[in-house]
């Protein structure tokens, strides 16, 4: 349940460390974003000497949330933090490595590149 003002971790090596959600992409008054939703975020903390800088506005996809994700097969998964992967307009990740486990749902939503880079897919 990510909404504007939510701080999120970044699960890749794109250069950003922490993002703050500004907008949930989807509908005009959409309240919350879950795993697999795209958000517009501003970079609050970045690794020095990388292409991404602090206070830059970027798009990201949410890959893990503390709110439970209810899968189609009845499984309920809860992660330990809220994490995102920085993407460009097509949906390709800006970084080259992904850290942490990724939910299988991302594959259905056409984030295949992220799923293939992930070290573990649940």
């Amino acid at each position: 349940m990510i909404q504007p003002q939510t701080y999120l971790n970044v699960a890749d090596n794109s250069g950003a460390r922490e993002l703050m959600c500004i907008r949930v992409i989807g509908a005009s008054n959409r309240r919350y974003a879950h795993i697999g939703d795209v958000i517009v975020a501003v970079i609050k903390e970045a690794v020095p000497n990388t292409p991404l800088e602090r206070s830059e506005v970027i798009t990201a996809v949410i890959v893990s949330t503390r709110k439970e994700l209810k899968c189609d097969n009845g499984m309920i998964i809860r992660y330990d933090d809220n994490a995102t992967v920085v993407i460009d307009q097509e949906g390709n990740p800006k970084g080259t490595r992904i850290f942490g486990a990724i939910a299988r749902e991302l594959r259905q939503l056409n984030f295949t590149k992220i799923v293939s880079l992930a070290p573990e897919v649940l």
Partner: protein
Amino acid sequence: MRLEKCWFCSSTVYPGHGIQFVRNDAKIFHFCRSKCHKNFKMKRNPRKVKWTKAYSRLHGKDMTQDSTFEFERKRNRPERYDRNLAENTLKAIKKIDKIRSDRASDHIKNKSFSRLKTGKVQRQKEARKQLELGIHLVKAPLALAQDSSLCLPKIKVNVSQAQTEENQPMEE
């Protein structure tokens, strides 16, 4: 589909039940119900919580080492489907389950620490045996022969004649 074990209470989690928690180091914890999940969030150690299997195994209340546990090891290699193998496995599961539960209940019943009635019987049996073997520590054998008040009456008899004959084996 895989039947997991609840991390807290060690019961099986069937599909559609419970919650999985993924920690940041990608370790997955399965919970069978919210009771176990909440206890986990409270950072309770299952080995100290009395109603969990972890506690009972640690304290010897449940059988821990048995060859039947070898059959239930987690194997990550998928087997090619073979009809005979699948059929035999299904039959074997039933049989192994029965053997395991029989052995486990034997373990529980025949233990002297058991709070069941059989445990009390077992304790009395062991105590009696210990007394018989170590009666010489209580009183010297010679003194025992003369004053037989410390001997266990082995058989309840009506005839007074037979009672004096019983004490003679104690002299040994």
